[in-house]
């Protein structure tokens, strides 16, 4: 375990570090179209320095197709980087199967587990994970700290990104931020202890929320697989209601449209687009995150607030009006602007 400044750095270090180290023999990286931006961006940097990158599509449920993965790996593939849990839609990739394929094909398996650690059981041995990124603040630890697991047997070698005093076995220089390391460690311990119970509790809340919304609203769609999904996530398209306007209304609730990194931008989520969600529906989606401090009471309040504002915004939505009149909005020739 190497301490880093966070999952972004861990992902950069894992992918770039391993690619750079083995670049004399291998020049290919496999990842998916729904990875976190920092993985996609790292891959783009690698492309600029001569690597080939395969961005695997995902299925409509957000999961990677294992046969497509198997066929994408060549003897020049240095690393397969597939996230454990998606940050926007919460779907869980089949890590054990992916790890098995990578081991068979003799390529390293990196997984961005920022959204998975502490929420689902992870086992680097069973899942054949060679590199795994973890974030402090996604497991109720502090921001500014993360970790990268680097397998020792068989040994994975990396070119460090940050050099200097040689801390962290030379993989990551810089004075260790002791308070942050302690915070991450404690948070990890608590998560490990409470994971099972917490998952059950969140599952109930997730179901409660979804039932509440479905009972009172029509035309809502959950994006991503509902079964292979962490219970703390719901990503919902509220048809005919633009996501940002909905967020502005539900003032007592903190949710996001798209991922936080990019929510200040106006483009619809690339993750939803990769799932094949139409652009107009992608604009109506909200990511709702439930966690250890979320109560049943809060879920009920959230449902009420969402229902109230969705209804209010639909009443002023020209698209909702058309849908009620039976007009197919796809039949209209919209001017681009």
């Amino acid at each position: 375990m190497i301490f880093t400044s966070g999952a972004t750095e861990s992902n950069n270090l894992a992918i770039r570090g391993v690619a750079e180290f083995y670049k004399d023999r291998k020049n290919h990286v496999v990842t998916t179209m729904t990875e976190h931006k920092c993985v996609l961006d790292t891959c783009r940097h690698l492309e600029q320095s001569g690597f080939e990158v395969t961005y695997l599509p995902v299925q409509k449920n957000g999961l990677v197709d294992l046969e497509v993965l198997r066929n994408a790996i060549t003897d020049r593939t240095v690393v397969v980087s597939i996230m454990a849990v998606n940050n926007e839609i919460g779907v869980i990739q089949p890590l054990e199967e992916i790890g098995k394929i990578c081991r068979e094909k003799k390529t390293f398996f990196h997984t961005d587990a920022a959204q998975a650690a502490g929420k689902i059981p992870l086992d680097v041995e069973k899942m054949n994970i060679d590199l795994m990124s973890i974030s402090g603040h996604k497991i109720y630890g502090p921001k500014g700290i993360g970790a990268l697991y680097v397998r020792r047997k068989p040994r994975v070698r990396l070119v460090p990104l940050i050099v200097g005093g040689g801390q962290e076995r030379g993989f990551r220089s810089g004075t260790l931020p002791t308070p942050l390391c302690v915070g991450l460690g404690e948070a990890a311990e608590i998560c490990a202890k409470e994971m099972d119970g917490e998952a059950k509790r969140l599952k109930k809340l997730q179901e409660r929320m979804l039932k509440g919304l479905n009972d009172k609203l029509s035309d809502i769609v959950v994006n991503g697989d509902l079964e292979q999904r962490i219970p703390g996530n719901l990503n919902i398209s509220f048809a005919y209601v633009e996501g940002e306007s909905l967020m502005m209304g539900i003032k007592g609730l903190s949710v996001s449209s798209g991922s936080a990194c990019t929510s200040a931008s106006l483009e619809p989520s690339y993750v939803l687009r990769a799932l094949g969600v139409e652009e107009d529906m992608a604009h109506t989606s909200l990511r709702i995150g439930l966690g250890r401090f979320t109560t049943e009471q809060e879920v009920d309040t959230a449902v009420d607030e969402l229902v109230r504002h969705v209804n209010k915004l639909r009443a002023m939505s020209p698209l909702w009006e058309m849908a009620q009149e039976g007009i197919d909005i796809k039949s209209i020739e919209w001017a681009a602007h």
Partner: protein
Amino acid sequence: MSAAYAYLDHNATSPLRPVALDAMVEALRAGGNPSSVHRAGRAARARIDRARRQVADLVGALPAEVVFTSGGTEANNMALRGAGRRRVLVSAVEHESVLKAVPEAARIAVDGDGVVDLAALERMLAEGPALVSVMFANNETGVIQPIAEIVRLARAAGALIHCDAVQAAGKVAVDLHGLGLDYLSLSAHKLGGPPGIGALVVRADAPFATDRAGGGQESNRRAGTENVGGIAGLGAAAEASRSGLDGVAGMRDRLEASLPGRVFGAGAARPPNTTCLSMPGVKAETQVMALDLGGVAVSAGSACSSGKVSRSAVLAAMGIDPAEAATAIRISCGWNTVFEDIERLIAAWQGLYIRVTQSDISQRAA
């Protein structure tokens, strides 16, 4: 600090200032991802904006020029790689995070006090466009470089200039625009902020390319969710340290006048807090352990290579004889040092020196 234990190793890490701890606790309790548009996110963003102003004010920069990093090491790495110059000139006494960032960088020689040889620099600059990286104050000796003069030479030759001000910011006046620097690194935990946070200040019109891919934070200059707690702590510490460390100058002068060892870099300008001092015939490790038992924390050289004690590259570059360099310890004061700490050090140092010189035990250096 209570006189029961005198912490005189501020150049390794300075204790957290209470104002910094308060700012951190407040930010950590509030939470929020500063990129989120909801109110929790916006509140976190506001804390970062405030800290950015506080850091900018400390080093004479504009808030938009401040890029938060995970510390001085990352800031130095980023500057040397991000300036985009293939030819890099570094002084021979730089921190390892500068030396190792560009291993092939040419080394600028220093004189016996550890001050950059300006004539040598000028000759090297004449060979073509370069990035010059020279630290403000040395971590081991405290020696302050003639930055204004170095900038003048670098500018005349069309070079870019980075300054590692990790050991200077908050101790002596540092002014990015006043000096004409392009890049400046600083670290929070060297000025009473928390570890795990620092900044690279990039002058608005200086070229800079990031190699950290991700979510586009810090205006696309450093990806990764901002360490809001750390940033708030850095901001508060930066503001608190604007008054400098002039108060400790008298303490340093007192200890240097009281102890007979050689002070390295004594002929050069130094910040008021750092003394690199030899105890003739006694290995630095022995001194560190004995002083620790005597209730005083100091260090042998820099603390980075924690545990392993190797020969100081800084003292070697100054032409100090290896046997003498092996007897050098670093005493560094800080914002909470009091005269009692210095008295404790003086007593412990003298006690050790007398024991060793009188008993001729085998701890003598070779």
